Structures are given as structure tokens and as C-alpha cells.
């Protein structure tokens, strides 16, 4: 399996606070990875560094062998933990924007998913609930034929029915050439779709194993292991 993401000695500081500390990590194509850790562990920082919204203080970070830049942004599809679609737009405007800027954008996929989740093309973003905005963003992100999907809390703000649909979408979009990194606290909900688990704490890598390894070695589910490792 070829490598899609590689971090070597990756360090990010906010002033005196160390968000990521000398992190070494490698992710292969064809995997769905759960990025887990307590609040403030560095999950979002890692995802933002890969997306190119932050710059590391030291260390190397490559996607598909390239440093973060235009070429990596072309193949990385990123769902932030907040809503970013300008309020004045309609659904059709943001779809056109994605179609304009991303070569890998699949319009047919968008149409099907919008239809399934009952979102109309001419709906105004301003009039949408937070949950609907999150669904729309996820639809846009999953409608790209990307090689690396970064999903930061993709299911936190949506109802359980939509949650199931989203997870089904992630699995059915499975592509052996692509990897999916999902950061979440709702471990039980996503446990069944994960291949690998990365647990980080205070910016340090705690565990990087396959779900099967975790079950075999500890006899526990990922959720149980998480509660044990990060017991307060």
C-alpha cells in the first residue's frame, strides 16, 4: 500500500503552548482512520496543517510525497469543524464554486446526495439551520473524488438519521486510492467503519493501530480503550 500522508517530527506551537510535539505519522491509501483524542489534544491542529490553514514550526509534512501547497490542495478534501460557506450564497452558488475550482468535483454525486438529504439547489445558506449547513458541507466535501479526505467532527452537529446516512456515504464512497481521516468524539458511532485508529494526547502520538489489533490485543472496543487511555 502506498503512502498518502507522512509527518516527520511535526511540531506546531501557539505561542508557548505546544499543540503538536514532534509527531511521526504515516497513513496509507485505502484506509479509513479515526483520529481520536480528548479536547485540546491536537487533532484539529493536525488536520489544519494538512489542509494548509496553519504552518508547522518544525518538521516535515507531505501529502502524496509533496509539501503542502496547490498540488496537495487539489487532492485533499477538507471538512472543517465550523461552517464556512458565505451566508449570502445559495446552494447552487457554492456548488458552482466547487465545480469551478476543483477538477475532481462530481456534480452527479452532489445532486443525488442533496436529493437524499432534502436540500434544494435554490435554498439560501442564511436560512439554513446549523445542522443543514453541516450536511451541505459534508456533501460538497464527499462529492470530490479526492485522494485524502479530512473530516473534522463530521457528525457532531447532525441528527442520528443523518449521521447514519453520512457514515454510509463515507463507506460507499470508499476508494482504494483514497484515505479518509475522521476526527470525532463519537467513537461508538464510527467504530464500525474504521480500519485504523490514531490516538493523540497533548500533541503526542499515543496509539496508532488497526481496529483489529486493538480488539485482539486488548479485548476491548475502540470506545472502551479510549475511555481507559484517557481516563480523567
Amino acid at each position: 500500500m502506498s503512502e498518502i500522508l507522512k509527518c516527520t517530527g511535526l511540531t506546531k506551537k501557539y505561542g508557548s503552548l505546544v499543540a503538536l510535539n514532534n509527531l511521526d505519522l504515516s497513513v496509507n491509501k485505502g484506509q479509513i482512520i479515526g483520529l481520536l483524542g480528548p479536547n485540546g489534544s491536537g487533532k484539529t491542529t493536525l488536520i489544519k496543517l494538512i489542509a494548509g490553514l496553519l504552518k508547522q514550526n518544525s518538521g516535515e509534512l507531505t501529502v502524496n510525497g509533496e509539501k503542502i501547497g496547490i498540488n496537495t490542495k487539489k487532492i485533499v478534501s477538507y471538512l472543517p469543524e465550523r461552517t464556512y460557506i458565505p451566508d449570502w450564497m445559495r446552494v447552487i452558488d457554492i456548488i458552482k464554486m466547487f465545480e469551478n475550482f476543483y477538477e475532481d468535483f462530481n456534480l452527479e454525486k452532489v445532486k443525488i446526495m442533496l436529493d437524499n438529504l432534502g436540500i434544494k439547489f435554490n435554498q439560501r445558506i442564511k436560512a439554513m439551520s446549523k445542522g443543514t449547513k453541516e450536511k451541505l458541507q459534508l456533501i460538497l466535501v464527499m462529492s470530490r473524488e479526492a485522494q485524502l479526505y479530512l473530516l473534522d467532527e463530521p457528525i457532531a452537529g447532525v441528527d442520528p438519521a443523518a449521521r447514519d446516512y453520512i457514515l454510509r456515504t463515507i463507506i460507499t464512497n470508499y476508494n482504494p486510492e483514497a484515505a479518509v481521516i475522521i476526527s470525532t468524539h463519537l467513537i461508538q458511532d464510527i467504530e464500525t467503519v474504521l480500519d485504523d485508529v490514531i490516538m493523540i494526547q497533548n500533541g503526542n502520538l499515543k496509539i496508532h493501530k488497526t481496529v483489529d489489533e486493538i480488539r485482539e490485543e486488548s479485548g476491548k472496543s475502540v470506545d472502551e480503550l479510549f475511555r481507559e487511555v484517557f481516563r480523567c
Partner: protein
Amino acid sequence: MLGKLFKTEFKASGRLYLPLFIGVIFFAVVERIMLELETRVSNESLVLNILFGVITVIFVLIIISVCVSGQFISIYRFYKSVFTDEGYLTNTLPVKSSSIIISKLLVGVLYTVFSYIVLFVSGFIMVAGDLLTNALNGLRITFGIENTQISLMDFAISSIVNLKLTLTILAVLIIAALFFNILMFYVAFAIGNMANRKKVLLSIIIYIVIVNLLSIISAGVAMFVDDWLTLDNVLMVNVINITLAIILAVIVVIGLVSFFVTNKIIKSKLNLE
């Protein structure tokens, strides 16, 4: 990609400028109608006078907002789409950071020019016809042009031989200044964004510092030119042209430096927390 970015920004900014432009033109027409009514109907009508007063106040307010908005909207759009939540969309697009800056800068300058055109048109609507003729006559009489047969243009040409060159430099200078003003804000916001908190406040302080530093530099240049003026062998016309050229050069150099600093920060030091 620059074209696509330009198109996107043109639309996003247009939605903010357009209501102002329509407002100015609309109120200019209303003002004109009121003026005509006032002169033709009656000066005694209290209702008409109050209405005229209210409309005039609104019109003036809109004109002021158009004057200010030219740059303000451009700066707001830049800040909002690069450094706030919208930045999560803008900065993950597979485009060069320089293209993002250039597209927003061009749109900002373009709409500033549009706003001046709209103001000019609204002024024309207000005074076109008899009013304009009267105003021009007034000007002519004030300057005594009819009596002495010397036109303003003749006067200008006689004192500034190389008028064409001066006007050309001046035109380029005005265009450069439009870019320059917006770039000063861009660089201030880019530097301010590098801080971990109070980014907007810091950006404004940085802007004030930059503007003050530039005033000091301009004062220095003015003193240098002033010394030079005393030299007998330098013609007045050359002094004007050279002064303008120096200002232009300073604006272009500082503008370019600001652009590169802004680009460098967005490219290598982006700090979206």
C-alpha cells in the same frame, strides 16, 4: 484560476456595492425632481421643504458612504474571506495565494473607480441642464475669462510647458494610489493575523503605524524637493514632474513590498485558529 477568483470576488463584492450605487442614482433623481419642484411650484410649501431636507440628508449620507465604501468594502471582503471562517474555504482552494490577493485587489480598485463614476453621474443628474449652464457661466465670470480672453487652459499651458507629461504622471499616480491604499490595509491585516489574539485591533494599530511612518517619509521627500527648488537651474515644470515621479516611485515600491509581504504571510505564515 485568477479569472475564476476575480469573477467570484466581483460577484461577492458587487452584492455590497450595488445597493449603494442604485441608492445614489435614485436619490440624485429624486433630488433633481425636488429641486425642479421647488423652483417651479412654491417656496412656501412646508411639507415640500421638510421632504426636500430629509431627502437631501439621506442623499448626503449615501454619498459619504459611497466615498468611504470604495476601500472599506474591499478591505472588509479581504479580511472576511481570508482571515475569518470563510478563510477555510478560500485558503483550501487549489490556487496561489498571490492570485487570491491580486483578484481581490483588482476588484477593489475597479469598484472604487465605479463608485467615483457613479458619484460623477449623480452629480451630473443633479445639475444637468439649466443649472449646469448657470454654474459654468458663474465660473466663467468668476475667473474673468470672458473679459480678458484668457482661458484657464492657456494659462496652464503658458506656465507648465510640459503639461501632457505632468497629466500622464498624475493619471498613473492616481491609479497607483488606488492600489496602494488598499494594499496598505491588506499588509496591516496580514501582519495582524499573525498574532494569537486581538488580531483586528492589532491590524488597525499596524495600519495607523504604517500610515504615520509613510507621512514621515513623505515629509522627508518634501524637504528634499524643497531644498532642490532653490537651485536656479531647475525649471519649475521639471520640479513638478520630478516631484510627482518621485511620489509615484515611492508608492510603487512600497506598494510592491506590501504585496510581497502580504503574499508571504498568507503563503507561509497563515494562522487560522
